[in-house]
């Protein structure tokens, strides 16, 4: 057990036990009714994100709906356009279906990127302590001090925003949240006997860090990744609503921006509701599932139930 390599049996065994644990956790989370609703919503959302553009009856931007030669402006739901049309004669159902994808991309990649980066920084910082810790924590202080949305707006005002660029900006500003929490968890875990005994048996820093410490903070890591998905969706939608989204795609945030800017928000409830409900339902679901998960992961909440 002195070597730094893992034989394949041990690896498989670990993976299997981790997988079993994940399955067990999921079934436990889904006992919570709110989390169940959230989970179903998220599955539907991912489906829309993957296949939405293909099931949309029209192209969200290029197709202009016409009736008897004139453009169908601000048509109420019904007939040709099931959810009505925008003031530019575009089909709202198609925009809604296609708009799920950019929202999903920003949320998923922004969230996972934030989770992974924050996890690694927190793990390194908490494990090594000392100077490394001081440096990394002052760096997180700095990203806390720089106001996120204003800075993002400034940056996006002089580069052409694209979905991927926005995702990158989100990760740069959001990683600090998981990093701080993971760091404080790691600091308690690394003092425990099994970590010390691993070191005493000659395990290197990398091995100790990733095989002995990391699995014990993985739960919190997943929790904050889930929350980061929610934050990213909110931030992406906010940027799009302020007019700093990717101008080439239709996203839910951008739909809201257009209905707001055009002034049609006064009358065209059919244009407002689909994207507003879409964003609200998805972010709520993320947090409902996350909260049910937190009840399991956060050891402080495990007091006796009466």
């Amino acid at each position, binding site marked *: 057990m002195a070597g730094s390599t893992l034989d394949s049996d041990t690896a498989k065994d670990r993976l299997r036990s981790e997988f079993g644990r994940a399955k067990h956790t999921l079934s436990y989370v889904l006992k919570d009714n709110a989390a169940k609703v959230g989970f179903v919503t998220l599955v539907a959302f991912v489906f829309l994100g993957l296949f939405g553009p293909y099931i949309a009856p029209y192209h969200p931007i290029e197709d202009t709906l016409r009736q008897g030669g004139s453009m169908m402006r601000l048509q109420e739901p019904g007939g040709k356009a099931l959810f009505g049309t925008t003031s530019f004669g575009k089909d709202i159902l198609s925009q809604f279906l296609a708009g799920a994808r950019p929202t999903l991309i920003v949320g998923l990649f922004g969230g996972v990127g934030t989770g992974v980066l924050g996890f690694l920084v927190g793990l390194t910082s908490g494990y090594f302590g000392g100077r490394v810790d001081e440096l990394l924590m002052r760096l997180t202080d700095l990203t806390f*001090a720089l*106001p996120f949305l204003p800075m993002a707006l400034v940056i996006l005002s002089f580069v052409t925003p694209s979905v991927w660029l926005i995702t990158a900006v989100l990760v740069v500003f959001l990683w600090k949240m998981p990093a701080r929490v993971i760091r404080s968890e790691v600091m308690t875990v690394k003092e425990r006997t099994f970590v010390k005994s691993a070191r005493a048996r000659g395990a290197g820093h990398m091995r100790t860090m990733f095989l002995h410490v990391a699995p014990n903070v993985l739960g919190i890591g997943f929790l904050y990744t889930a929350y980061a998905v929610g934050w990213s969706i909110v931030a992406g939608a906010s940027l799009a*609503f302020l007019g700093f989204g990717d101008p080439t795609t239709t996203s839910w945030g951008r739909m809201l921006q257009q209905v707001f800017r055009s002034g049609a*928000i006064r009358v065209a409830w059919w244009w407002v509701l689909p994207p507003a409900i879409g*964003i*609200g339902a998805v972010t709520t679901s993320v947090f409902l599932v996350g*909260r049910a998960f937190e009840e399991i992961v956060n050891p*402080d909440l495990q007091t006796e139930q009466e």
Partner: protein
Amino acid sequence: MSFRRFLLKRTAIAAVLTLIAVSVIFVTLRLLPSDPFSGLVASGSLTAEQVARVRAMYGLDEPIYVQYLKYIQNLFTFQFGISLTQQRPVGEIIVPAMMNTMVLLLPALVVTAIVSSIAGMYAGWNRGSWFEQSSIVATTVFRAVPIFVTGIFLLIIFSYGLGWLPAFGMRSPLANPDGYVETYLSVDFLKHYILPFTATVLFYSGDFLMLARNSVVERKGSEFLMLHRAKGLSDMEQLGRAGRNSLLPLVTYFALRTGMLFQGVITLEVVFAWPGIGRALVQAILNQDYPTVQAAVFIMALAVIVMNLTADVAYAKLDPTVEAGDV
């Protein structure tokens, strides 16, 4: 480490952070491909000499390090320069906008901190109850949904749908009040105030509720409460004791939230056309009015740093178990 040393160290860190943050802002703004005046030459509205004069007026012709030093000096003396698009001092734009934001957010924050903390403590005490479950789900919804979406819902229901409340701005177009008192103390203002205030209260309620609920849950099994029960205190009296012990995270969180005040609800200000600092920033960015952008971002950063420092100090002062050892 004594409290004095702790305070000194924290303050020094905050000062250095402020300096780094404003430097980052400076660099970011200087990265912009062009200054707003080059556009004027291209459009033919100004000659090259005129532009050179204007650039000299704004100090843009000096070497970059001189610009940087002047920028730092001006920021810390709160001299924000002249707005490029409105031809008046940036301070005249920013200060009233800050006031408007504070008038909206501070009362909302205080109200939600008190109401949802009490509700959260009650929820945590009655863990598993109907009240706990439904209050958590309700506030999670409002916490999760972006604040501008909540705002839009309120807008289309109460302004456009029912026509009860105005949708736009802080006062009706005809009102022309003079001074802060007249501006903020009128029925007209109140009508404009209700919707954005409600959206803010709903948005912030979730965090305070969960924090209060979690810290009461954490304390529920503890021995000092068993002692109180053994003494024969009623349920509510016990909750009072547990609640007092849960105040610390709430106080710190309140300080942190106050620091985020100016940057927290930019989108909400846009939805309700509330003339606050967030909306001023968005407009300044769209108009390429960099002195105003600089000032707004600086104020937002400074607020966070100062309130973080306050939270740290308050924590160290209030928590008797913290001997300020690990900072």
